[in-house]
């Protein structure tokens, strides 16, 4: 049976990642059109009642590798390669994220297949899957097909919507022997939250700060601007979080949070895809950037080309003056 296999990422408590559930729903939809089935792989000792979420989202079968720890890509490649080889799966599907990229690429290499990343849509054509992959800063969309071998599709963050179908999945526990090199990395700590536990998800207005702020101190100006709104907060890009300028809890994007406030005001942010995916659904997007070619101007509702050091303090004063 030529089906679709999904990697279902979960946290240490066994709660599945929303994008993984989206990938399961998408796989179920596509499998329906192809006349086949969608299955999922769970790595780690996740309890049956938690695993049930995958069936509820459309998987008919779940392979669980209890003896393998989740969180690193290469052991997951071992597990998925075995399931795919034993079960004859044609496609592997991943929700957005980082591990999916690593596992997907490794799987394609191991099983001599093809891999397409950043996929925003998948359709069925003539009994095969066609992946839509935006390229060149989203200026074109390439339709990609797979020509023999395993087809690996790694979705863009939030590309696939999680939908409960109310089904249930049969769980099969599998034993997988890890390859020698997969055991050569050790996950020392996982999911460390760096910096303060700020809450940005409830804010109506987010002032997003990026590398253009120049230094950690630069965030002060964003905080002052955010304070002029009744329910404002400050968000950040990965670039500045990795540099230790702002807490991880405030990060927007692929490996951060997804938000949709009434207003997202981006200050000194280039608008890389991995940031865009976390904030593109904001109702109104304003961007201040000194580079007229910055990608953020492609999707801002109001783009201001200029120096943030001049504009942001003046804007803050003007809003304060309005009271």
């Amino acid at each position: 049976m030529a089906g679709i296999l999904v990697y279902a990422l979960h946290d240490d408590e066994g709660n599945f990642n929303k994008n993984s559930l989206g990938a399961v729903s998408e796989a179920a939809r596509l499998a329906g059109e192809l006349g086949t089935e969608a299955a999922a792989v769970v790595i780690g000792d996740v309890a049956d009642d938690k695993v049930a979420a995958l069936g509820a989202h459309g998987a008919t079968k779940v392979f669980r590798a209890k003896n393998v720890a989740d969180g690193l890509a290469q052991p997951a490649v071992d597990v998925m390669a075995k399931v795919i080889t034993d079960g004859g799966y044609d496609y592997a599907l991943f929700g957005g994220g980082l591990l999916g990229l690593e596992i997907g690429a490794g799987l394609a290499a191991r099983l001599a297949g093809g891999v397409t990343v950043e996929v925003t849509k998948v359709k069925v054509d003539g009994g095969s899957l066609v992946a839509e992959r935006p390229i060149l800063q989203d200026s074109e969309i390439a339709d990609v097909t797979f020509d023999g071998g395993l087809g690996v599709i790694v979705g863009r963050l939030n590309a696939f919507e999680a939908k409960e179908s109310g089904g249930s999945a049969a769980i099969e526990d599998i034993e997988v022997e890890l390859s020698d090199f997969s055991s050569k990395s050790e996950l020392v700590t996982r999911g460390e939250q760096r910096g303060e536990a700020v809450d940005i998800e409830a804010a109506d207005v987010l002032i997003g700060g990026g590398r253009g702020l120049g230094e950690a101190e630069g965030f002060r100006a964003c905080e002052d601007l955010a304070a002029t709104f009744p329910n404002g907060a400050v968000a950040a890009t990965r670039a500045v979080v990795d540099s230790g300028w702002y807490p991880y809890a405030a990060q927007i994007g692929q490996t951060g949070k997804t938000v949709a406030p009434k207003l997202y005001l981006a200050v000194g942010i280039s608008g890389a895809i991995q940031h865009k995916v976390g904030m593109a659904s904001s109702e109104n997007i304003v961007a201040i950037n000194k580079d007229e070619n910055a990608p953020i101007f492609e999707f801002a509702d109001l783009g201001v080309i200029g120096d943030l050091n001049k504009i942001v303090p003046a804007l803050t004063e003007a809003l304060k003056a309005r009271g």
Partner: protein
Amino acid sequence: MKICVLVKEVPDAAAPRKIDPGTMRLDRSGATTLNEFDKHAIEAAMQLKAGGELGVDEVVVLTMGPNAKVLQTAVSYGLDRSVHLADDALAGSDVAATGLALAKVLEAESPDLVLLGQQSDDGECYAMGAVVAEHLKMPSLTQVVKMDVEGGKLRCERQAEYGYDTVAVSLPAVISVGDAINEPRYPGLKDIMGAKKKPVDTKSTADAGIDAGQVGEAGSKTKVIALNPPPQKEAGEIITDEDTAATVEKIVSWLEERKLI
């Protein structure tokens, strides 16, 4: 100990990018440059060599592509020598095929560490490290923003979906570094002058023992069958700041119109 750094020639950021409708590949005829993200991998290699803990004797840079110019730029940062994989048979290779070809060349070099950047500025697949590692059967991690030598292993930190992960990786390994890991140096005049004299080893697919049927367009399992424009989105309003008081006034009234203030 030997470090190999993988680099890529990409279209210059200032040059407009377009797809050649005939081949459905990126038109690479314009000005090109060393992929910015690779400079962080070069810098990381130089720092590991200078640090001394690993006893790095040699840093070798490797590229696949028609032009060797990018290798000269790369060695001007102080690297020791370069390997250039060039062959018409490689044209049109997708990520998996490119990774396979690079891995074949790396196999012959037998490095203790392979470093690469977090992404190429043109292909943006973020996946090359994982493909290369799989073929070399080495442990691997991508998007690493902190890397320390500890007990002969690399202690790496990177952000994944739940926050920061710390991973101890045994050597030999393949590591892709994020752009926050370091501030790349500027090449010194002496190194720029010396770059031309550093050895370049040019290899064809046959020299590298690559099966030509597994690379290039023929060996690539992904096929681009069509290119379409993205759904039209209403263009935003753009203002250029010439007089900041007037700019701020425009922003404020824009926000007012939408009842955001």
